[in-house]
Every structure is written in C-alpha cells, then in structure tokens.
C-alpha cells in the first residue's frame, strides 16, 4: 500500500470485518453497487454479495433493523449518509439501542457510522458534529478517530465490542489525511477508550478529537515560535472519556484548552473541563478554557464556515490567551 486515506481506512476496516466475521453486514443508503455517497463501501457489495445492502430513506427503520439483527447475533454497521440525518434515527439509537442491554441483558452490538463535521459549502445540514448528543446517553460508546490508523483500528474495535457504537468519522479528514500503512491488528493500537498524547509538551495541554486534533497540532507548531511547548491530547473516544490521561497531562502542564468543532453548550469541551475542574482542580495553574464552534447553525459560505469552526489560528489565539492567564 502506498498511501492510504482516512476514508480508505474506513473502507478497509469494513472489508476486513466482512471477510473475517460472518456476522457483519452493512446497511445504508446508496452503499451497495454505488459504494456510498463518499465511497466508504466501494466494491464491497460486489466482494460480499448480499452483505452490503441499500436502504430506503428511513433512518429510524435502518437503526431499528440493525438493533433487531444484533439481537439475533449479527454485527450490523449502519451508514448514515451524513451525521445530520441521524436525527431521524435518533429515537431508535437513544431509546432502543442504548437501553437494550441495561433493560434486558441482551447486548446490542451495532455500529452507526456518522460522516461528521464541516467542509466548505456544506451548510447547516451536511456539517454537523453530533458526538455530544449521543455521548449524553448511558449505554452508547462514541468514537471520534482523528487519524488514519485510528479510523481503521477503532472501526474494527467498534464492530467487535458488544455495545452500540456511534462512530463519528470526519468528512474533512476523508481525503486530506493519509498514512503509509495500517496497523495489522487493533491490538497494535492503543487499548479501547485510551486517549493518545498526539504531541508531548510542557506549557499547556490542548485536548481535542477528530479534525480538531490537526488544528490543535498546527496551533502547537505555531506556538513553537513563541517559545512554547504545547501538549496535544487526542481523546479518540468521547464516551468513555479517558480522564486519567487528561489529568496526567494537566498535571504536567498546569494549563488546559479544550477544542471542539461542535457547539459549546454541553459539548465534549464542557464535559472535559467539568471533569478536570472537579477531579484535577489542584493541577490547574490557570482557568481551563474551551474553544468551540460559534453559536449558530453551521453556515454555508466558506468564509463564514472558516470563522464558525475553530482553526489552527483561533486555537493559537486561545492558547496565547491561556498562557497569559
């Protein structure tokens, strides 16, 4: 393999799961012969006849079908065409998938893939990041891979675990992010639910996830010129959150900035700060800060979109302010 994109990693993980596990099938709109709106299932319908199925425009029933199949021992993957449309499958996800094991003792091993996050020109309904909505619900695992390797291993992990997983894959990373090779097994990756120190540092910690990890890393680079050494923690999963790794990082740096592409109210950033403030208050040398999307729907025009979401430069600004607190 010469150069593998984040999107291709997702495709390859599904291919591998289909090959190795007869319980796996994929269900979603236009994912069969067409290979999906983003081509995340390209060729899979041909390679695995009858196991990559086109769904009608029925998100509620798509998730319901996955739940029922999981009850009977399958490992369904549901592809939402965009994360934004999962609102139409919301009830089945939060009220049936999330509660099934607690109520009945029967596990609900489904994966719902959400092509998430903003890209220029996508507008209010093709850009959303819904991780905080799903993470609110006990019983759901919410994954937000930031790297090609994680997209691959975490999707395999998502398929293998017994709980329903909301898999937030970032559309902006689909083509932009590349890796030379993939880990041969999930075991080579970090354990499930562990955060990763994406960049070690000393002066402040940025906690980020998904596409924002890359903005954070770029901001950290920018601050090298100012003489600062910034640590970047990639959460990888936002439910569970690896509070220990975050606290250990804050213990080293004393300062915390949390960056999320979603809206602030009740988002990942708010949750991380609440945990650090409660459990690691004494570690903080300055008030923990957060940087999120602006408080409007995601705008259509690229110029508005570029300001709406956090970027390397707005992260760098927030960092500079944090370092002066």
């Amino acid at each position, binding site marked *: 393999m010469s150069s593998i994109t984040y999107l291709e990693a997702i495709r390859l993980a599904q291919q591998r799961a289909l090959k190795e596990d007869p319980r796996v099938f994929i269900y979603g709109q236009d994912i069969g012969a067409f290979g999906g709106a983003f081509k995340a299932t390209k060729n899979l319908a041909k390679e695995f006849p009858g196991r990559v199925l086109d769904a009608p425009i029925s998100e*509620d029933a798509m998730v319901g*079908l996955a739940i029922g199949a999981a009850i009977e021992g399958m490992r369904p993957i549901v592809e939402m065409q965009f994360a934004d449309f999962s609102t139409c499958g919301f009830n*089945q996800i939060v009220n049936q998938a999330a509660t099934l094991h607690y109520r*009945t003792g029967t596990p609900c091993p489904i994966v719902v893939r959400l092509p998430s996050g903003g890209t220029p020109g996508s507008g209010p309904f093709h850009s959303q990041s819904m991780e905080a909505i799903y993470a609110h619900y006990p019983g759901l695992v919410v994954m937000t891979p930031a790297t090609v390797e994680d997209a691959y291993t975490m999707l395999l992990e998502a398929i293998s675990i*017994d*709980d329903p997983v909301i898999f937030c894959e970032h559309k902006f990373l689909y083509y932009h992010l590349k890796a030379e090779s993939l880990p041969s097994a999930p075991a080579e990756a970090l354990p499930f*639910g562990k955060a990763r120190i994406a960049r070690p540092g000393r002066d402040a910690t940025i906690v980020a996830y998904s596409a924002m990890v890359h903005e954070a890393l770029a901001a950290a680079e920018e601050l090298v010129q100012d003489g600062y050494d910034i640590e970047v923690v990639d959460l990888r999963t936002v439910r569970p959150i690896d509070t220990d790794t975050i606290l250990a990082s804050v213990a080293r740096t004393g300062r915390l900035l949390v960056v999320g592409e979603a809206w602030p109210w009740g988002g990942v950033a708010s949750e991380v700060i609440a945990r650090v403030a409660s459990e690691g208050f004494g570690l903080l040398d300055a008030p923990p800060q957060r940087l999120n999307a602006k408080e409007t729907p995601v705008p259509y025009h690229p110029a508005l979109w570029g300001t709406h979401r956090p970027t390397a430069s707005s992260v760098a600004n927030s960092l500079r302010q944090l370092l002066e607190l």
Partner: protein
Amino acid sequence: MTKANSTKSKGSETKSSEESSTARVNRELSRRAYRTMLEARLLEEKLAALYRSGKIVGGVFLGRGQEALSVALGVHLRRGDIYAPLIRDQAGRLAFGDTILDTLRTYLGSSLGSMRGRDGNIHRGRPSEGYHAMISHLGAMVSTVCGSLVAKRFHGEKSAVGATCIGEGGTSTGSFHEGMNMAAIENLPLVVVVANNQYSYSTPNERQFACSDLLARAAGYGVSGHRAVGNDLVDCLGVIGKAVATARRGEGPQLVVADLLRLVGHGEHDDASYIPEVMKKSPLGRDCLELARQSLIAQEWLSDDEADSWHKAVEKEVEETASKVLREPAPDPSEEDWNAFASPSLGRNL
C-alpha cells in the same frame, strides 16, 4: 421459552401451527387459545387489583377485550419465531411462552423477574429468545422485528416468521411506515396485526386517520392485507393463521387489521368515559372471552364444566403466584452496578 408447540395442561395433542394455519382452525388450537385468553383476563384483573391497592406503582395497561386477537397471533407462532407484542398483548405473550410468574414479577418489580426491576409492566421480554421487549415509542418495534428476520435470513433459517401488534394510533407514526415499507422491500416474513380499537388513549379515529379503511394501506406498501373480526376468536385464529402461514411460505409481509374495542381504560387510571355507550353496546363492544366460550361450547369443543374448572384453576394459579411474588425481594440499589454497558471493560470509565 416458546411454548407454542408444547402441549402442557392446556389441551391434549396440539397440531403444529404450520398445519393448523393452513385452512381450518382446529379444536385443540381453539381450546388452547381460549385457555390462554382466560389466563390473560384473570391475570390482568389481578394486576388491576394490585394497582388499586398500591402494590404496583406506575401504570397498568390492560388488554381486556383484545385477548382473542392477541392470542390468535401468539398461538400461531412457534419456537424460533420473533414476537414483539405491544401494550394490549397479555394473551399473545402467554401464548408465545411468557408466564404468569414473570408477568407478575415484572409488574411488581421483583428482582427475580426478567427485567430485574429495571423496566416494568408491558416493557418486558427476553430478546435473546425471540421475545422482544417493546420500547414505549410506538412503531419502533416494526423495524426491529424486520432486523431479526434479516438476521434469520443471513443464518439461513427459512421458516421463521416475525410478528408484532400495534394499535391504530401507532400506525400514524413515521416509525410504523418506515418499518412496513422496509419489510416489503426485503420481502420479509413479517406479520403485523393492527388492533383498531377505535381510540388511541382518548383520541377517536377521526382525529387519527382519514382513510375509510386502514387495510387500504397494505396496497400502498405492497403487502398482503387481511381483515379479522377482532372480538371473534374463531375468525381471528383463521385469519391470522392464514397470514402467518403465508408469511412462513415466503410470500412476504402480511398486514392484518381487526376492529374491536378495548373494554377497559387506556390504563387503569382511566375510566374510558370518552367511549360512547352506544359504541360499547354495539357488536364491537362484545366481550371476546364470552364470545369465545359460547362458540367453543356451541361447537362442543368445550363443556361448561370444563370452562368453569379452567377458570378456577387459573384463578388459583394467579392468586398463588401473586402471593409468592409479593414476597420476593425488590432489587437492591446497593447491589446494582449502575452500568449500562455490556462490555466489561466499560464498567468504570464512563
């Protein structure tokens, strides 16, 4: 857990439901169905009493008047089938293999019940045994049953059917529509029984739908439609038997619509005073249990004495089971792990 094919005390030899569903409804099936209706009726009367005496907390939602329709579906299912009963399906549940014991345990929140006090009343089931545990959100179980049937198709199980019930009110949900449409596309062996009891809670049909006949929806989905007389056990057994058999033969989803009336409030807190007397006195309002008894006796499939002795036996079983369950331990909060995840590693780190 399914006992649809078992003989038990309910009747002597029962033919397999495959056979019985071909054309004529046989004696043994009717007897078993009637006996199960009786169990449901007396069990629900006990549930109502337990609610009134404050022993059951929350809601009690009964199926009085709908036992014939409900049981007719339950008795035609068998081990390996999928069943997602809804609110008024005590009879169908018992026919499918649920027990008086577990029903009482669930309502009373016993820690020994299948729901362990975590969920209650009608929200019970054993999904791993094909007996789905409904969520409250109406319509949601249609696609869930579809999913289990898709799994069976993957497993190469050819003769299983999946079945669910819903009220006419539930047909207004988007979830119902999506599930029906999906079942039709996948040509699944799904049987959906619509109990049109003229009211969803207090809402009369003219505020719930405007088609002259809900059965007209079958054509819109491309599924077969059947009509049953909802309070006539013999008719329900025949019609639903045919629907189940057709689905089992691989001829795709079957929609059954039956008119009837619930002879009780929406829940035990409700006196159903919004249902006009004239409707209660119409043929719709005739009690299916009475009718079934008369019809079985008329056909000499059951004697008055036998019916009475069944009544006594069931009453006794219900009473004894209730006393037993009332002494069972409630769940102990301090012994709960308060963890919704199935993956063991996820216990601590949330």
